[in-house]
């Protein structure tokens, strides 16, 4: 369970988000909506630990009652998925997946995990292909599975569907929700498409309204 307590965000002397609190249970997706520039992405960066230094934040975050906001980036175990799939263009699909699997797992098991992910994606023949050989929707799915293979404790989704064709979006959304439920970790989705929020079948938070 991911808990955020009284999170506030300000840029200079302008307050963007004030005393925001929420909880996300395992396997659930909370959707945060609101206009651009309201600080949605900054909330994600606060949780992942990569906030830019000119923003000031207050508030606490806990993962299963363990403080998150005091930990170093590498100890937070946050999975982040953005608009761009960020698949490494110089590595094959299977290398991209293997890259994320923790190094302490033995080699045959790692390969089996990666191949299992490829099966799930329906592209076992593309193991040695480069990312650019995949369609946008396939790339988004590979990116999600790559993030999940790194065994994150929670997932942050920063408008991961906005670059996809409308026709593809529905499939990818269903795929993402299924995977999150299977992984059974809390997920936070930032979007300004109400359809995204609806498809995630979870709670919804509108940031602009709360602020005014």
């Amino acid at each position, binding site marked *: 369970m991911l808990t955020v307590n009284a999170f506030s965000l300000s840029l200079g002397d302008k307050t963007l988000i004030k005393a925001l609190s929420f909880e996300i249970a395992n396997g659930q997706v909370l959707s945060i909506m609101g206009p651009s520039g309201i600080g949605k992405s900054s909330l994600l960066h606060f949780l992942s630990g990569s906030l830019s230094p000119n923003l000031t934040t207050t508030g606490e975050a806990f993962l299963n009652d363990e403080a998150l906001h005091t930990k170093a980036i590498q100890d937070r175990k946050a*999975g982040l998925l*953005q608009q761009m799939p*960020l698949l490494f263009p110089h590595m094959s699909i299977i290398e991209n997946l293997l*890259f994320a699997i923790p190094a302490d797992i033995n080699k045959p098991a790692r390969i089996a995990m990666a191949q299992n992910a490829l099966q799930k994606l329906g592209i076992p023949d593309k193991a040695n292909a480069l990312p650019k050989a995949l369609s946008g929707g396939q790339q988004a799915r590979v990116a999600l599975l790559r993030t999940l293979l790194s065994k994150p404790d929670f997932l942050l989704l920063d408008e991961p569907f906005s670059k996809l064709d409308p026709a593809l979006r529905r499939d990818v959304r269903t795929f993402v929700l299924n995977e999150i439920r299977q992984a059974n970790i809390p997920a936070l989705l930032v979007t300004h498409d109400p359809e995204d929020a609806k498809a995630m079948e979870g709670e919804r938070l509108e940031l602009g309204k709360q602020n005014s």
Partner: protein
Amino acid sequence: MPLKHAKWITGIITLLLIFPIVIGLVGTLLPAFAYFPPLGEYTVSLAPWRNLLSQGEFYASLKLTLITGIVAPLLALWLALSLLAWGYQRPFFRKIEALLSPILAIPHAAIAIGLLFLLSPSGWLVRLFSPWLTGFDRPPNWITVQDPYGISLILALVIKEMPYLLFVMLATMKSIKARESLQVGQTLGYSRFTLWRKVLIPQLYPIIRLPIFIVIAFSLTVVDLALVIGPNTPSTLAVTLLRWFNDPDLTMRLMASAGAISLMLVIVLVLASWEVAHLLFRQLTRAERSNGKRFGLTDNILRLGVVLGLFTLLNAFVALALLPIWSLARRWRFPDALPSQWTWDNIERATPLLMKLTTNTLTIAFIATLMACVISLVMLETKRHNMTDANSSKPHVFDWLIYVPILLPQIGFLFGLHVLLIYLNLNGDLDAIIALHLMYVLPYVYLTLKGPYLSYEEEYLQQANRLSHRPWRNYFMVKIAMLKPALFTAFAIGFSVSIAQYLPTLIAGEGRYSTLTTEAVAQAASGDRKQVGSMAMLQAFFPIMVFWLAQFIPPRWTRWRLKLKQVFHIGLIKKDKTC
């Protein structure tokens, strides 16, 4: 690069960059005022300056230097702008663009030697028209190369500098939105050349000011090119100074140092006057820009520039083509346009020498360029840290410091450093040669890498670290691997800069280590065209080869790597089955 203490590293590298510059400057300045402990001169006086100013040769050399050093950049700039205005975005111009990097890569000494083969009285040009047109059956008694006015030197300088300026200009076309401006202007009814004159060139100039300054400084101070194809008595100032520095009478060094200081002053004065001239020119043409005329007579200046520019390029290619022909010629008597007999003998005979020269050349170039790549990466990483930390666009210390070695004249400066090498007991050492090469390779590698490195999408590396927190490994496996094309190009440029170095090799090596360049320059005047041709050809071959590899390998690297891995993997599975 997960660097800690970026500030400290910046400081240390800054000191390492400044140290040789200061030593070189002090080592030139003190002897110029007669203070030179190695010769037992401890009294400061103006005697070297009095000697210098009483030398008639000084004034004659200075005049030649000023003529060649100002005319060549002016011509190069005019021709490059004309060619760009004429050909930009035309399909066949792309082919010319593709030919630019080989010319850029070729050491200038090789081009000068090619020109010598082309233009000298017994050269290919006269042969081509003899005897049917000229009636000559022996070489005429003309002075066509090494002419006392420096015309052939100017031609050689333009051939080397025009492609460089063109290359730099092409890289800025996007940032001044050239295509869009041309479209808008042409719908207003402006002719192409007028648009370039009134709209694009004024925007282009401030961006390419520094490259132009580099070209001017190079023209005023070049040694190897002037040795091969420049005038002899008197020679340009840089060559005269080299002779004085190498004079057996060691007190000549003091006068030479004073001459080197005056050469530095000349550079500063010429650059300053160039800027003043540009300001005046801008004031004069400002009103003309908005007078609404859609075309003008001055367009013809650009038109003429196109013709001369194409002619210059053609000259360069013919000159280069003559290098291998000479190295394979057995009998090539005067009026014949081509050798009557061909042979590999020249190359075979020269093989032991060529092997030794090639080994030296490549060893120095590889080590110096690899070091330059590593240092550039560290420098750029500290610059990136600085940019993200301070969040400021203040110019970083590296951004101007890196230009200093290129702008300072090698003559004088390097002799100052040589004194340090003697103190350190490193004179004549391979390490010393590599160190001096590094000083000239580093700026070019840094400047080539800078753009791609700083515009790298850092999110890839951050995502990699979120997926698997191994910062150093990810830096190499993700960031460096993705920057491979830029790194290869930077390596190729650094490599060709190193191969072209003449004075650093000569001064640090004290003649104990010869490279293809030093030997080709030394023998250019010898008349043994077959051997000189072989050396110049090899000198041109390696940079072109490395440039080609740098274009060829990166796009195929991943495919090859995956193929290799697959082959290896299949092997493993088969082994498993037999077990």
